[in-house]
């Protein structure tokens, strides 16, 4: 997981990335010439008001979309040239997604949801079940294997989603407003879990519009109007459990 970040080659490297959407004759630039690098093992928060382009940036970082112009290198691969099938492969191998809406399949049990990325990777069924159980154990839900999402609380559902993101041992976790649909105690849980995962060496990118959540990250990238408005290193927190290091 670490070690991919060889010197001079950050895990993620954006060079002059621009993304424009056109609806009819109107062209809207969601991202304008963004250049940044993120290294393996970092816990980075991307913040900004709605419309600042952070969702678009997240889609590009997650290989769900490709830039209109500029280069995006992920672990040394020039992703902007990849086709749909290759992007699917890159997502499967490098990225674990955590969404605001959880996006669990209601008709599958917790472990069947968690094993999903492994199904597309071609892992055999016995190993899938084992790895799904391990991932659920890591998020503290080993006893909820056979529960369907409808039978779990919001916080538990998000933890199942995190287990699904972890099960492939991805190079980075991409969390898009992971606490946006959770109450405060579940938020606390989920952020704690992400901090633990970071402490274990995982690269995590957290997209949020809440400053106090971003404050737990070591590095905060603030977007405004499709450009990087500020890129600050946060010296204090997040090497240990996030909840012990909440600034006043």
């Amino acid at each position: 997981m670490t070690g991919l970040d060889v010197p001079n080659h950050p895990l993620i490297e954006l060079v002059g990335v621009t993304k424009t959407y056109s609806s009819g004759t109107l062209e809207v630039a969601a991202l304008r010439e963004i250049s940044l690098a993120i290294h393996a093992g970092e816990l980075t928060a991307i913040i900004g008001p709605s419309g600042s382009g952070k969702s678009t940036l997240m889609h590009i970082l997650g290989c769900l979309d490709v830039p209109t112009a500029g280069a995006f290198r992920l672990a040394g691969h020039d992703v902007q040239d990849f086709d749909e099938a290759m992007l699917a492969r890159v997502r499967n191998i490098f990225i674990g997604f955590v969404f605001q809406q959880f996006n669990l399949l209601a008709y599958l049990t917790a472990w069947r949801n968690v094993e999903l990325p492994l199904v597309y990777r071609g892992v055999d069924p016995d190993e899938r079940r084992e790895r799904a159980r391990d991932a659920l154990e890591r998020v503290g839900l080993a006893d909820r294997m056979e529960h369907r999402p409808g039978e779990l609380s919001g916080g538990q559902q998000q933890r199942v989603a995190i287990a699904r993101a972890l099960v492939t041992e991805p190079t980075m976790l991409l969390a898009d407003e992971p606490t946006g649909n959770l109450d405060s105690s579940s938020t606390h849980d989920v952020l704690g879990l992400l901090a633990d995962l970071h402490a274990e060496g995982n690269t995590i990118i957290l997209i949020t519009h809440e400053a106090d959540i971003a404050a737990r990250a070591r590095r905060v990238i603030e977007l405004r109007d499709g450009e990087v408005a500020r890129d600050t290193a946060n010296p204090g927190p997040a090497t240990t459990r996030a909840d012990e290091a909440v600034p006043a």
Partner: protein
Amino acid sequence: MTWRDVLHTAADAVRSHRLRSALTMLGILIGITAVVLTVGIGQGARAQVQDDIDALGTNLLVISPGSTTSTAGVRGGFGSASTLTEQDAEALASSTAAPDIEAVAPVSTTSASLVNGSDNWTTTLTGTTSTWAEVRSRRAASGRLLNQRDAADAAAVVVLGSDTASELFSGRDPVGETVSYNGTTLEVVGVLEPLSSSEETTSNDVALVPLSTYQQRLVGGTNRESVSSIYVKAASSSSLSGAYQEADAILLNNHGITNSSDADFSIATAEAALSTAGSVDDTLTVMLGGIAIIALLVGGIGVMNIMLVSVAERIREIGLRKAVGARPALIRRQFVVEAGLLGLAGGVLGVAFGVLGAFVIPTFTNLRIELSLPAAAVAIVVAMGIGMIFGVYPASRAARLAPIDALRSE
């Protein structure tokens, strides 16, 4: 992702949307039921015809009076003339002119009411010769059949069919008793052995009298020499076409007709009857088959419709599957397999309903339905194929969805 995983995923999706799956299957189910019953009815009709032909005998020719052409050029309809005569029958019986013909029986028929005391019964009074029994392969159950002496004497004797005998004599042996027709008393000399074919009613309800008696004493008419039809038995089924040609030539010659297209008679073979019946049932099969195909098409469109709804409804699921690494091809495969599964299930249920129908329908109609195992197997495969074919378009739409659009949708 292995095929097992694809199947498993599709089966989960089918199971988890029960009502929608059931509705999708319904269209296919109706179509397949229609197909199974159509094929069953077609095969039933064919089997029925085959049975009838077997009862008739495969080396039999039936010559009927045909259309006539008057001097004014007006053609009478089929069977409207009484162009066949006893002399024609005698000529056909000649073993030198017609070596392939084994036996000939001229027949004149009319509907007649026979009376025995207070009982009366309407049957087919048939005037024929002693050769009739040989030609039609019939035997006497009691008493005797007509002989040449009866013909020579124009004797007032009658041989009854088994049903006729039991209607007039209610179970008693009628041999030696008498029946009367139009004031003429006829002595019952024999009763035919019943035929157990499906044509029972017409084969076993008959009253045979010598042709001479029929013409001179019972029916008469304007042309006493004419007969209703002539039965010809070929020496064997392989000499049937020889017998056909000989009969045709002799009759044309007898009637002084040079152009065979002007023939005033027609010769029917059992094969001709079979092919006529066959063409009737082909028409039926084409018609019912058309209905079945339309039903299947509608079923297929139903599958497409519901799969499109399913894709729209599961747009987030598709987005998520793509986000975690499903290639477009795998998404397409999943939905095609899902549609195929729905088709397969509809097909299996359709065959089940078809089989049920095949048992239930004949109990309140006279339709004969013969189930065919290969047809059922083909129907199931076709149902699955239809599901998959009509699933391709919705599946391709699913595969083309951009993952972000799919995830973003509420």
